[in-house]
C-alpha cells in the first residue's frame, strides 16, 4: 500500500500527465474552430438562435436530494429565481427547506448494533437514540452568479430534438443545520460518569447529553446544470450543487485539543464542541421546472 504522501504525489503526476496529454495531443487548431474564407468568413457560428435567457427573469420550483451522505440524507423542496443580463450571464437566488430526511444504512446499523460502554458513553450515550444526535440539514439558501458557456441541441434517437444549455453557478450559501449540542467536560462527568450506569446502557442524565441545537453555517456554493427547453419559456433543469461546510455530522467525540488549544489531537477530550466538527463535501441533485418571463424569446439574426 502506498503512503498518503505517495498517493498525493501519484495523484499530482496523474493530473500532470492528463493535462500534458490533452495539450499535446489536441494540437494547435481545433477542427471545429471556424477558420474560413469566402462568403462564410465573419459570419456568426449560429444564426437564428433562440436566446432563452437574455433580459428575462426566471423562476424554478425544484426538488433536491443530498448525495454521498454518511448518516442522513435531506430531501429539499424549494426553488430559485433570478435574472439574466445576457444569454450567458445572470444572477440567481436559491432557497429550500428540508422537512424530510432519510437515515442512511450506516445510521440504522449503529442504532441496532452499536455498543455502549464506559469508554464511548459520550460519543454514543444510547445506540437506539443515535439518530437523535446525527446532524441534519434543515434549510439552505444561496446567492450566486450563473454562467452559461455551452448552448446546443440534444437529439434522442434522432426523433426528439430539444434546445439545451449547460450552466455553471458559483456563489455563497447559508445552511441551517440541527446537530448535537455542546457538552462540556463537567456536564459529561456529572451526567455519564458520576451517575450509576447499568451495563451496556446509559442513565437518563447521560441520555440528556444527546440534546440538539440549531446553527446557521455559511458555505461556498458551486454547481453545474443542464437546461432542456420544451418551448420558448418552459424547460427542465437538472442541477448538481456542492456546498462544503464543517459540522458535527455524527455527534461523536471525534477530536480534542492539545496543550496549546489546537484542535485535532487529545482524543478523548470528554467534551462535544467545535473541535469535533468535520468538513464534509456536501452535494445535492436538484430537478426543477424553469419558467422564463417574459414568455417571448429573443432570436438572433
Amino acid at each position, binding site marked *: 500500500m502506498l503512503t498518503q504522501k505517495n498517493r498525493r504525489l501519484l495523484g499530482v503526476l496523474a493530473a500532470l500527465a492528463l493535462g500534458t496529454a490533452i495539450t499535446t495531443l489536441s494540437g494547435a487548431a481545433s477542427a471545429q*474552430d471556424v477558420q474560413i474564407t469566402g*462568403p462564410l468568413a465573419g459570419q456568426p457560428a449560429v444564426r437564428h438562435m433562440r436566446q432563452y435567457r437574455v433580459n428575462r427573469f426566471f423562476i424554478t420550483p425544484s426538488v433536491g436530494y443530498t448525495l454521498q451522505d454518511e448518516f442522513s440524507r435531506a430531501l429539499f423542496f424549494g426553488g430559485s429565481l433570478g435574472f439574466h443580463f445576457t444569454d450567458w450571464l445572470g444572477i440567481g437566488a436559491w432557497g429550500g427547506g428540508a422537512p424530510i430526511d432519510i437515515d442512511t444504512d450506516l445510521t440504522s446499523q449503529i442504532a441496532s448494533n452499536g455498543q455502549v460502554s464506559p469508554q464511548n458513553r459520550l460519543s454514543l450515550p444510547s445506540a437506539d437514540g443515535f439518530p437523535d444526535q446525527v446532524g441534519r440539514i434543515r434549510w439552505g439558501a444561496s446567492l450566486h452568479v450563473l454562467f452559461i458557456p455551452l*448552448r446546443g441541441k440534444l437529439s434522442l434517437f434522432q426523433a426528439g430534438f430539444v434546445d439545451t444549455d449547460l450552466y455553471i453557478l458559483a456563489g455563497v450559501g447559508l445552511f441551517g443545520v440541527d446537530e448535537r449540542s455542546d457538552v462540556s467536560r463537567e456536564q459529561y462527568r456529572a451526567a455519564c460518569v458520576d451517575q450509576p450506569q447499568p451495563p451496556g446502557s446509559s442513565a437518563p442524565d447521560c441520555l440528556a447529553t444527546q440534546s440538539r441545537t440549531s446553527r446557521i453555517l455559511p458555505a461556498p456554493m458551486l454547481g453545474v446544470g443542464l437546461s432542456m427547453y420544451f418551448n420558448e419559456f418552459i424547460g427542465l433543469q437538472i442541477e448538481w450543487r456542492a456546498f462544503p461546510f464543517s459540522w458535527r455530522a455524527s455527534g461523536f467525540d471525534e477530536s480534542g485539543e492539545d496543550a496549546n488549544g489546537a484542535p485535532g489531537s487529545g482524543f478523548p477530550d470528554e467534551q462535544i464542541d467545535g473541535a469535533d466538527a468535520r468538513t464534509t463535501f456536501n452535494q445535492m441533485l436538484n430537478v426543477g421546472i424553469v419558467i422564463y418571463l417574459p414568455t417571448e424569446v429573443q432570436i438572433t439574426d
Partner: protein
Amino acid sequence: MFAARHNASGRDDVASREAASNQGVAMRKASVALLARALAGAVPLPRSAVLLAGAALVSGSVLLAGPAHAQDMEFSLDEAEQQPQQEGSAEGADMSFEEGETQPTQESGSGDVIGDLATTETAAEQTETREAPTEQQEAREEIFAVQQVYALRINRVEITPTASFSLNDPFVQHTGVGVGLNYWWTNVLALGVNFIWYEGLENESDIGYFVRRATRLAVPVNSYQFGAHLAFTYVPIYGKFAMFNEFIFQYDIYVLGGVGLMNTRPIPVIDPEVRSFNFDIRVAFNVGIGLRVFVTRWLAIVAELRDYMYLEQLENLEVALGAERTNPDTWTQNSPAFINNVTAHLGLTIFLPFDFEYRLPR
C-alpha cells in the same frame, strides 16, 4: 448569393417563416442570375456547377411552396448583390472556380463544409498573386442541408485511458487508473474491454475509523486490485453545441453494458490481528452512460458513469472462539452481499486510424 436550409429543431414561428420566405425568394433570384450568367458565358463555371445552380433553382421553387423551417445560416440578397463588386476589386475573390478547376475531393480527408472552405484558403492565397481578372466573377459555394457526421466510428478502434473514482462508498475511495479498447463495427455499436487497476490507489476514509471507535461497530469494507470488463456500447444520442456562440463541438452520449471480473478482498477490521485475506475473483456486471466530446476527428474527452455490480464476500462481524478463531473459514460471512460500485471515469479517447473516408462524397 447562397442559401442553406437546415431543419434543426422542427419548430418554427412566424418570424422564421417570413425569413425563410425571403430567403427562398433570394435563393431563387440568385440561382436565376447565376444560371443566366453561366449560360451567357459571363461566368466561367464548370458544367456541374451550372447543373447544381439549376437544381438549386428548382429546389428553391419547390421549397417556397412548402412550410418553412428554422434556419441556421442564411445570406441576404443585398450581401449577394454586393459580392460581384467586391470580387471585382484588386483584392480578388476569396473563392473562385475557373474552367477546369474542381473542388477538393473527399479523399483529402476533410469532411464537412467548414473543413473544405478552410482548405481552399491556400488556393485563394495563390490566386491573389495573379492579376485581377478582367471578367467579373462570382463565387459559388455549396452548402448542404445535412452535413456529414463529424467523426465516423465504423471500423475504427478506440483507445480510452481514464482515471476513475467511486461515488457511493463513504468508507473506501476506490480510485483507479484504466484503459479501454473498443472496436466499432457500425457507427453506433461497439464491442470493447476495459481494465482498471486499483491496488495502491485506494484510500480508506476516516469515517470508518471514527465509527469503529465511537460505536464499537465495525463496518466491513473491501479493497479492489483490478477489474476487467467486456461491454457493448451503443450511441443513441449525438449532436453539437456552441461554446460562447463561437466554437462548435460535436458530442455523443452512449450507453453500455456487459460482464467482467473484479479481483477484490475484505480489509480486516473486525479481528485484524488474526485475519488476513487474499484477493479473489468475482463476476461483475456493468451498466453505464457516458459523454464523448470531440476535440478533433480522432481525439475526444470522455466522461462516463458506470455501475459495477457483483457479489462481495464480506468479513464476518463475529469472531469465533477458541481454535476456530484462526480458521479462515470463519473469517467471512456465510452469504455474500450485493455491491453496487458506482464509478465515474474521466479521460481521453483516441480513435485509430486517425483518418477515415466517407462512403459517399456528400
